[in-house]
């Protein structure tokens, strides 16, 4: 059963990428929706399996590491797989209605979408340094393709900027991989980590980790390497923006976090951990600040991503040379932050798309009066905002709570300030949108009404983000499951 599930998980997106490549947009939509169903069921099945039986290593092609490529199917990974299934299906569903099927180039949306999905799954499950690189490239290129899809000069500019940043990041990562392989002779993260626990740290190995994390930080748009993100996320079609912000940036962060947690303790050092945390904090403040100053709705949301990503990097200082329990708290907090941000940001972008569709303009001040007309989408936007502001009972709040606890208990109280200020700043930009929409303007009667289902989707995501806080214990308990080692890492 598990084997079939794994095969289905890996096969479905790739196969559907091919299938949809052969159809036009409208038929591709139907095919996709079928695929989404399959993929969601498979993801759910795998999640349930892991939640019941615990995780395992899955050697592809029957070869175990270090010779072959192993997938690490643990609680965290399957949770992210499930998250991806949820968010991506929402985006796929939304895109099917949202995107104009008459434009011929839109038929390429579906294959790119499916490739992106497969790349994400590859990254969540990957335990092989080089395989992760390929997965990252799969994601990057399909994301760039989606951003540029049929675009005009500004979209092309954004996607080029995105592509170059992604490529530079990948190269840095690959250089790190090269050094790692040169040093340890294996590409399996688990293998390296287990070797390091038994042997003294060899000289010169810190650079590899630094390079990899730096490259990944660039791909994750950590301040000050974030300039590529807002144009790309802001200009793409809303479902694409949602995918990018919700999942794509998380993929590179996920790898960085995995590397740090496995190798950070022996290979890292305090200064760099604090430095990364500092950059994350700067991202929180700076990103929020810029989000407050944007004139375009989606730019606001995009800069909000920059800020929210900043929180993620607090993982580095909060897990370095701290007690086991603090580290666990920080990991749980970051995990929740990733999940809730994914759900909330996807909801936000989709809702923003609806709003833009409705008012026919992407400017923030064009929203005046829309609260009367499109309360549902605005409400979704708001609910997602609640999670971004990390107000209870959202997942963002649970995350913030855990991070606060971790900061306080490890004595690194300065992150507390970042967390609190960040929450307030995010409130500032979320409510800026509300402020604009609540304004009653006399000539605000020219609205286009998007389809009802378009409005429902962001609402579902937002509610998930909101409800995550209430069940975070259950979600986190799946990740804390004992890991059953089948392979030989």
């Amino acid at each position, binding site marked *: 059963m598990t084997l079939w599930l794994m095969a289905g998980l890996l096969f479905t997106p790739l196969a559907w990428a091919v299938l949809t490549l052969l159809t036009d947009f409208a038929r591709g939509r139907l095919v996709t929706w079928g695929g989404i169903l399959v993929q969601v069921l498979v993801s759910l099945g795998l999640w349930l399996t892991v939640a019941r039986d615990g995780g395992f290593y899955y050697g592809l092609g029957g070869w175990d590491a270090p010779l072959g490529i192993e997938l690490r199917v643990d609680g965290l990974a399957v949770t992210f797989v499930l998250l991806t299934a949820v968010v991506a299906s929402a985006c796929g569903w939304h895109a099917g209605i949202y995107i104009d099927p008459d434009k011929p180039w839109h038929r390429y949306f579906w294959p790119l979408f499916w490739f992106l999905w497969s790349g994400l799954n590859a990254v969540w499950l990957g335990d092989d340094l080089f395989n992760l690189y390929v997965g990252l490239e799969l994601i990057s290129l399909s994301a760039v393709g989606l951003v540029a899809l049929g675009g005009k000069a*500004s979209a092309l500019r954004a*996607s*080029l900027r995105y592509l170059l940043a992604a490529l530079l990041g990948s190269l840095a990562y690959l250089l790190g991989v090269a050094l790692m*392989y040169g040093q340890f002779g294996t590409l399996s993260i688990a293998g390296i980590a287990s070797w390091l626990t038994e042997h003294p740290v060899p000289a010169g190995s810190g650079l590899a980790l630094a390079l990899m994390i730096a490259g990944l930080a660039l791909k994750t748009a950590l301040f000050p390497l974030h300039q590529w993100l807002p144009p790309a996320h802001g200009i793409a079609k809303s479902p694409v923006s949602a995918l990018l912000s919700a999942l794509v940036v998380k993929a590179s962060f996920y790898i960085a976090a995995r590397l740090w947690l496995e190798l950070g303790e022996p290979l890292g050092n305090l200064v760099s951990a604090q430095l990364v945390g500092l950059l994350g904090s700067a991202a929180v403040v700076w990103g929020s600040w810029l989000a407050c100053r944007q004139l375009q709705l989606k*730019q606001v949301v995009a800069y909000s991503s920059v800020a929210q990503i900043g929180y993620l990097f607090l993982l580095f200082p909060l897990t370095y040379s701290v007690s086991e329990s603090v580290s666990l708290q920080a990991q749980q907090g970051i995990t929740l932050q990733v999940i809730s941000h994914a759900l909330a940001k996807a909801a936000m972008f989709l809702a923003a798309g609806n709003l833009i569709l409705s008012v026919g303009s*992407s400017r923030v001040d064009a929203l005046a009066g829309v609260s009367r007309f499109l309360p549902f989408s605005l409400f979704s936007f708001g609910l997602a905002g609640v999670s971004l502001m990390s107000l209870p009972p959202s997942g963002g709040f649970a995350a913030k709570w855990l991070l606060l606890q971790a900061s306080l208990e490890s004595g690194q109280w300065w992150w507390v300030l970042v967390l609190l200020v960040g929450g307030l700043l995010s409130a500032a930009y979320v409510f800026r949108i509300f402020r604009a929409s609540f304004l009653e303007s006399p000539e605000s009667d020219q609205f286009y009404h998007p389809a009802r289902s378009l409005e429902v989707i962001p609402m579902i995501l937002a509610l998930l983000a909101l409800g995550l806080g209430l069940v975070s214990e259950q979600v986190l308990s799946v990740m804390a499951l004992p890991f059953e080692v089948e392979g030989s890492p």
Partner: protein
Amino acid sequence: MTAPLLYALVGAMLCGIGLFGLLRLSHLLRKLLAFNIMGSGVFLVMVGLPQHQGGQDPVPQALVLTGIVVAIAATALAIVLIRRYYHLSGMTSLEGETTSREGGPE
């Protein structure tokens, strides 16, 4: 100093040059070339470093092969984008943009 190690060190140098190009040059095609140079450097390191002591090692060779394909794919995509960008905007670089232009009506 063996030949593979030399390759690796040259690779390091290429990386440096490529990085400089990526950061400094503004013409998109040159940037792309710089990327390829840097990529070559990385591949050299990748191939050179493990074979310095372990001798023949097919794994990095295979990896580099894969890497090259990926790099080619990326390069090709980038060129398509650059050409189209040039056609639409008449520009060869990403610089010189203003905030009003960014996302502004074309």
